[in-house]
């Protein structure tokens, strides 16, 4: 489904992502694991085209990402969102369908129903009419995941969706990821908890500026590999 070949990204001449190549199949959960400042967020942003690539090719179903905007759902870190913005949780989630609607078309009752379903999937239906600023950290994260669910994408890229989230919210999000995998979707998640990667994910990408190791967690998440990744 997703193919990345020789991806390089640089900020002001400093290489942040170096020579990354990987493939992700449909129905796969991939965890990106690495220390702070390793360039994990930049890697995700480079995949969706939010930061310019110096070189490399990223294709989805054999075509460039720009041809598949509706098939890719990106969940940013919640710290990058203005939670004081005057919208309700329902309006936030509804934004997930804007890409498919295109210019000028408004969300209909069908999209409203889908937004309610997405909110129900993350246990936030009761908060639908609340202001986004009234949500707790875990709820904010779930709202962003619900927005991505609205896109009904094939590939989900999530930047630390479990960071600062309580145990119950973690469970909800992890269950959702399992459901997405069961429906044949590919999900790439930046994640810090190595033990969870063992239990829930199909592939692990050890990352520190470049791809240190990529494969099943049982083979990749070895102490020696983690040592190389975190002490690089």
């Amino acid at each position, binding site marked *: 489904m997703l193919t990345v070949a020789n991806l390089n990204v640089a900020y002001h001449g400093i290489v942040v992502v170096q020579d990354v190549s990987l493939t992700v199949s449909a129905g796969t959960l991939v965890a990106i694991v690495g220390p702070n400042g390793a360039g994990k967020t930049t890697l995700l*942003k480079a995949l*969706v085209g939010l930061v310019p690539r110096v070189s490399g090719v990223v294709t989805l179903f054999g075509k460039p990402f*720009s041809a598949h905007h*509706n098939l890719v759902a*990106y969940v940013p870190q919640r710290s990058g969102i203005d939670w004081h913005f005057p919208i309700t949780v329902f309006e936030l989630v509804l934004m997930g369908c804007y*890409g498919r609607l295109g210019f000028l078309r408004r969300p209909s009752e069908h999209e409203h129903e889908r937004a309610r379903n997405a909110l129900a999937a993350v246990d936030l239906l009761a908060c639908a009419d609340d202001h986004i600023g009234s949500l707790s950290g875990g709820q904010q994260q779930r709202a962003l995941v619900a927005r991505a669910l609205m896109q009904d994408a094939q590939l989900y890229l999530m930047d630390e969706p479990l960071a600062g989230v309580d145990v119950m919210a973690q469970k909800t999000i992890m269950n959702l990821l399992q459901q997405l995998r069961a429906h044949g979707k590919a999900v790439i998640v930046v994640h810090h908890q190595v033990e969870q990667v063992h239990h829930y994910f199909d592939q692990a990408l050890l990352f520190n500026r470049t791809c240190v190791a990529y494969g099943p967690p049982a083979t990749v998440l070895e102490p020696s590999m983690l040592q190389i990744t975190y002490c690089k």
Partner: protein
Amino acid sequence: MTFDWLTAYLFDQTVWVIMAGTGLLGLTAGAFGAFALLRNQGMLGDAIAHAALPGTVIAFLITHSKSAVCLCGGGVLSALLGICLVECIAGSGFLKRDVAIGVILSVFFGIGLVLLTIVQKYPMQGQALLHRLLFGNAAMMTIDDVWVIAVVALILLSVLLLFWKDFLIVLFDAAYARTLGYAVFKVNGLLMIAIIAIVAIGLQTTGGVLMSTLLLAPAAAARQWTHNFLPFIVLSSLFGASCAMVGSLASTLIDHLPTGPAIVLVVGVLLVCSLVVGKYGVYA
């Protein structure tokens, strides 16, 4: 006796022309001011208003016309040039955006004032234009001016309704909008052009010095009453319209009271009240 005088005044067609013109201006400025506020670009309106001044004066010097279309056209071109320069300077990375806005704002306003000294040499009309462009004078508003404001307001409010969700998503989360395939630059550009057009038509009513207040203060006041997007925009528009109408009415009732400061005082009182007693204000 006083009551009769007031009744006669309120039935005066000129008063209704002024009220209609400033009301429409306040309505549109309030709506788009809310978007400017959400972009966290409070200084934007100020920069545009100041950058529009030289273009307005040049348009007068070339055409010798005081028609709203002519002066607005010059103002829009000049403001566009100013904002493009701000974006170029900020984009180059040599200066921060607020510094670039401060510099361009002052330089363009300075050029406008220098050009106005040339206009002052024109008998009478130069003095009047100077005063009107700096501090606004709704009393000079003609029915033709109101038509221009009405047409511009209708176009801009239609743009707002048509691109409602596009403005919303780009303002809230531009990066996410880009991943959905939105041309964020174009949506931002459209919003910028709309704000420039409002400032240009408002220049003669509230004046260049205070136009940004009509743009931002109603939105800031509305923000204290609601956390929802649609009510926020509607309330900001209504605040803008009512303050502009009350302010302009006061300026026509009281001799030598310029319209701009009168509107700013009214909207200022509303803002302070909203900040204190608003649903999400200080008191709450």
